[in-house]
């Protein structure tokens, strides 16, 4: 499993309002200038739309077995073929999209909430910095997949536990980025001014520092989303993730292993779904990082 690319800890410049455009509009404009990012955004939007509307657009009931149609190759009736129980692979991939994206999204929420809190505390409340950073160092000393497996071994296989385990795994990465950015922002004159005006620490942290950390946070969140999907698939494949009866993309590949040699579409299509989603997220993440950090535009 690849490591997460480092998001820049530099907060986004906020001089854009001077020209009458919101920072979001400018970032979007920067993103849309890159054809590859546009393709990735369209692909991601399509995947999200399919996942959101799966219940209405699925051609078949993904759980309905049809023994007479088992292991049929892709055809006009079943675009992605059928599995060993005659279930429509395309419908199962659509349902799997809901679950895999949901896991990715929830992992991002868990890691972003806890990582931001820890990072802000470490970056602003200096006495806590040492303790919190040693804790994140220790958690980052475990490879992602291994730590996730260990938590799953303790917690047992379930969707909630996968989210919890991956949330814990990725929290230190968010905490590191947020802390680094908070250390920069806390020295800014406006934070100093707020302190001089007697603002309370929570007000400074959440009202003045946090909004200026959103750029690195958003970039990191995009990559975590991508890697959470990959790691969830790996956990499901190993049989320690979401229970096998739930059709996540990883479970579909794991279940198809023994039939793969006669029916390669059973592995091919769920795999392509993972690759397309993760690739699109990575390209968007890269684009966001470049758009939010002008220094990187010069390097890459």
């Amino acid at each position, binding site marked *: *499993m690849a490591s997460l690319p480092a998001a820049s800890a530099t907060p986004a410049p906020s001089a854009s309002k001077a020209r009458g455009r919101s920072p979001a509009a400018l970032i979007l404009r920067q993103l849309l200038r890159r054809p590859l990012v546009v393709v990735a955004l369209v692909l991601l939007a399509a995947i999200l739309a399919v996942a959101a509307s799966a219940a209405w657009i699925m051609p078949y009931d993904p759980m309905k077995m049809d023994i007479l149609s088992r292991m049929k190759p892709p055809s006009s009736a079943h675009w992605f073929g059928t599995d060993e129980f005659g279930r429509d692979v395309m419908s199962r991939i659509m349902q799997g999209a809901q679950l895999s994206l949901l896991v990715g999204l929830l992992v991002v929420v868990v890691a972003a909430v806890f990582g931001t809190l820890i990072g802000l505390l470490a970056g602003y409340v200096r006495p806590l910095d040492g303790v919190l950073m040693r804790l994140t160092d220790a*958690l980052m*000393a475990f490879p992602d997949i291994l730590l996730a*497996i260990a*938590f799953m*071994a303790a917690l047992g296989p379930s969707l909630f536990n996968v989210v919890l385990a991956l949330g814990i795994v990725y929290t230190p990465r968010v905490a590191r980025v947020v802390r680094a950015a908070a250390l920069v922002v806390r020295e800014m004159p406006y934070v100093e001014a707020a302190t001089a005006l007697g603002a309370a620490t929570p007000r400074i942290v959440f009202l003045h520092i946090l909004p200026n950390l959103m750029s690195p946070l958003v970039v990191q969140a995009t990559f975590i989303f*991508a890697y959470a999907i*990959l790691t969830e698939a790996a956990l499901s494949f190993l049989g320690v993730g979401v229970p096998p009866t739930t059709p996540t993309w990883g479970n579909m590949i794991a279940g198809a292993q023994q039939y793969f040699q006669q029916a390669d579409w059973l592995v091919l299509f769920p795999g392509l779904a993972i*690759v397309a989603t993760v690739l699109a997220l990575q390209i968007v993440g890269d684009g966001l990082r470049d758009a939010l950090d002008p220094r990187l535009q010069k390097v890459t």
Partner: protein
Amino acid sequence: MFVYIVRRLAGMMVVMLIVAAVVFVIARVVPGDPAAVMLGSSATPEDIAALRGRLGLDQPLLGQFLIYLQQIARFDLGESIFLNRPVAQALAERSELTAMLTLMSVGIAVIIGVPVGILSAAMRGRWVDQAAIGVAMLAASVPSFWIGLTLIKYLAVDLPWFPVAGYGPPDAGLLERLRHLVLPAIALGIPNSALILRFTRTSMLDVLGDDYVRTARAKGLSPLVVVLKHALRNAMIPILTVIGLTAAVMIAGAIVTETVFGLPGVGNLIVSAVLRRDYPVIQGALLVVSAIYVLINLSVDLLYAVVDPRVRY
């Protein structure tokens, strides 16, 4: 340098102490009684009580942790519940395969990542560069188990060039063993080559913009000499770092790859332990792999001084 090494080792000990605490806690967050979970529903209360005593679960939590630390200090990782032998022995028996697989995978990732990264940086902005970045992103997006299954299908079943699974018969020679590791190493190496490629490219781009590279070019040196002799040497630090990190990541990545290819390595042992809830093995493996991970990071840092004479501690 000596002071730096001592300081880093001390820092590493602190991190490992917290790692040990995390490993200890993980086995204690099991819902219900860990001994009952490990033995399953058919266990009698006597069996559960005996296992609780054997694992020290009847002691207070702090006492359990201290016992655990003492055991680690003696390199005693406990006894496997299902294998009925020391965890350290079980890990050692399977470590050769995992080490070889990791080394081969690192080799493949480096062979792909470093030259393509250099080429990409040297041809910045051209189609070769764009293609390399695209391929790197694609490689990083593909699950290693999916690559593994695809390789088995096309290069072991349809074209029987490589063994489908396993590590060969017990009396197999080194070459036969290595042949069994080719496909797993490719499956593990390809996704990890992406990170090496991207770091190599970024690191080379940083260096290629430096004054001394411009001077070398102005002296009329060939582009090949400028890139490989002048730029690459100074770009090596980040590249070495990422190779070290990738090697550490691959040890864990082997968990998935060994399962796909049915290789009896440490990864396979971990998955079996998780499925059987053999917590001593899970704890031992977590501790050993994270220690290797931390040690590789330390070694990479220390290598800096060797590779770059400007680095002084």
